[in-house]
């Protein structure tokens, strides 16, 4: 059985956020929802500041606090290590969100109609229609509505129904087809790597073994499956350089 993991080469990441865009297109996530998020952070005092970028997918923990606290088993871990949400079973208590130290969970606060309406593009506009060729609105990845894996559960993203929790799935619909997650596929500088970590000869195992790195908040005992290489973890002084996305969704 494969055990999937991701390696993030911080020495390569340039903060272009193409991975965030690819994720949104692949998983059709609503506005304000970032299953993959890239921190753009600043450390130190001006003029001696250091700018850093840190992609933050779900850490796919092997001792996941979100799975532990779920009262109905909607959040679960597959044999291949991927932590998924069963959207048919989730009751929306948001316990997984407060239990997760990484802040990767996104609750569907709005109905899909409203959540996607805000993009503000008038698809009926002839000029827009000329570009989209009638494909939008909305582009829907057909794989997301299919049941995934041998469990045959609705875990790939679905319709982003109101009142259920969702998060990065390592693009389970792609992984099951033998593809890499969309973020890994699209990264222009090969900062993201994906593969089977149980196989010592796999490219990702060799990539990790040849470099030094860390796992995020490993001291909490979550045993993440995401390896950060060629960089340093964010310190207590590290802060985001952008304003928070509070106004989104209000």
């Amino acid at each position, binding site marked *: 059985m494969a055990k999937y993991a991701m390696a993030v080469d911080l020495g390569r990441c340039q903060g272009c956020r193409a991975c965030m865009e690819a994720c949104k297109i692949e998983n059709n996530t609503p506005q304000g929802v970032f299953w993959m998020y890239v*921190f753009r952070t600043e450390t130190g005092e001006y003029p001696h500041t250091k700018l850093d970028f840190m992609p*933050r997918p779900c850490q796919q923990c092997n001792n996941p*606090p979100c799975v532990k*606290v779920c009262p109905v088993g909607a959040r679960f871990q597959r044999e291949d290590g991927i932590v998924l949400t069963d959207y048919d079973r989730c009751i929306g208590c948001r316990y997984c969100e407060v239990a997760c130290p990484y*802040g990767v*969970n*996104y*609750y569907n606060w709005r109905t899909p109609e*409203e959540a996607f309406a805000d993009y503000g593009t008038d698809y009926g506009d002839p000029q827009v229609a000329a570009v989209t060729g009638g494909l939008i609105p909305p582009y829907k990845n057909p794989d997301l509505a299919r049941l995934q894996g041998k469990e045959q559960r609705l875990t790939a993203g679905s319709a982003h129904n109101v009142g259920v929790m969702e998060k990065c799935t390592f693009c389970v619909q792609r992984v099951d087809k033998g593809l890499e997650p969309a973020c890994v596929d699209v990264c222009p500088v090969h900062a993201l790597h994906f593969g089977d970590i149980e196989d010592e000869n796999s490219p990702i195992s060799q990539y990790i073994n040849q470099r030094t790195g860390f796992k995020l908040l490993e001291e909490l005992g979550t045993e993440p499956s995401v390896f950060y290489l060629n960089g340093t973890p964010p310190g207590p002084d590290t802060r985001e350089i952008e304003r928070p996305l509070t106004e989104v969704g209000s």
Partner: protein
Amino acid sequence: MTAGTIPTTEPKGGHQSTGELPQKIGQLSPSWIVFFVAMLAVTAVGFYAYLLQVNNGLIVTGLRGLGTMAGATWGLYVAYYVYFIGVSFAGITVAALIRIFRIEKLEPVARIGELLTVVSLILGALAIMADLEHPWRAIVNLFKYGRPQSPFFGTFTMVIAGYLFASLVYLYVTSRRDAALLAERDSRFKRLYRFLAAGYTDTRAQRRLDRRVTFWLAITILPLLVIAHSTVGFVFGLQAGRPGWFGALQAPGFVVLAGVSGIGNLIMLAAIVRSATRTKGRITIDAFSWLGKLLLGLLITYLYFTAVEILTITYQPGASELTLSEALLSGTYAWIFWGAIASLVIAAVLLIWQALTRRWSIGLVVATGVLVNIGAVAKRYLIVVPSQTHGQLLPYSTGTYTPNWVEWAIVFGLFALGALMIGVFMKIFPIVPLEETDTP
């Protein structure tokens, strides 16, 4: 349900009937009707807000996601759920004190306490349902897929199902005698009383049996009470992913603050019942001084816990704990924090002063009841919210959360619903147990 919906029986003019029911049961005074209509209106507004939330999603509340959305995903609903569950502490504790330690002076307020337990558990369950977008799915899925490993599972099963059921049984068992006594009088509720009495006959042997049953029931419910309130503490105390939550003190702290808010509520309610049902001769200063002493013990324990807590988060805190403690002690939440501490300390001083001078005043004891409940609500809010907005472990921006009118409307609606339940109960059944001499 209003009093008018209960079928009236034919007046028979029986030899033993007095016709008159005690404690103004069945008498709808103008002030009671005003109270009823006002509470109904507030409940209706809360229900309207809930419908708005069901139709549009939780977006209509002030809640938002953690992390990149920089909000709080648990807010007023969870804070008040914890508070309501806490208030339920009162009933069974008082019952246990009466049955196990034979403190007869508390007997007149026992049923008020038991009713308070049942009502506040229902309100707690409704508060957590208000927090869910899919309450029906939650109920079905908890039966189908419930996982005992989740601290929330204990909330739904042990607290809301087990504890509520046990408390209802207790309330019923201790009420049967009164129902039997009242069934012998001619009144519009005669048929209801006869149904509730279920063949009860008020004999010496039966009373002895009652005492034995309630004693063992109290002993059985007591550990359930500690477990139930601890479970609510575990919802937070087992989570290492948020600053300020992880800790062994959470569960016992929850139990003790539950006692503080529960006894405080019982004191307020007893004072209201006393004047509303003309039972000033029954609920005397003795009951209030006993409740005051009990409250003082719990309050001092809780203040000690709080002191330990403050020392722990300020002496040598980690980076995220430092951010949180600054927000609590001198930042965004300082006014709530110090307001809570001030009301709890003032309440403690008032109680200590009365205990030392041995001069208890009902007004002052009720004032402490109000003060400790303000403090308890504030402390519940401070446990739930600041750990989500401040001191995040990854470099997310500091979050904000302001409850909006929808959340307040639902919370006030819950309070009004609770008041309605107690108010209607008072007009149907004696809320102060009948005396032994009431035997016909």
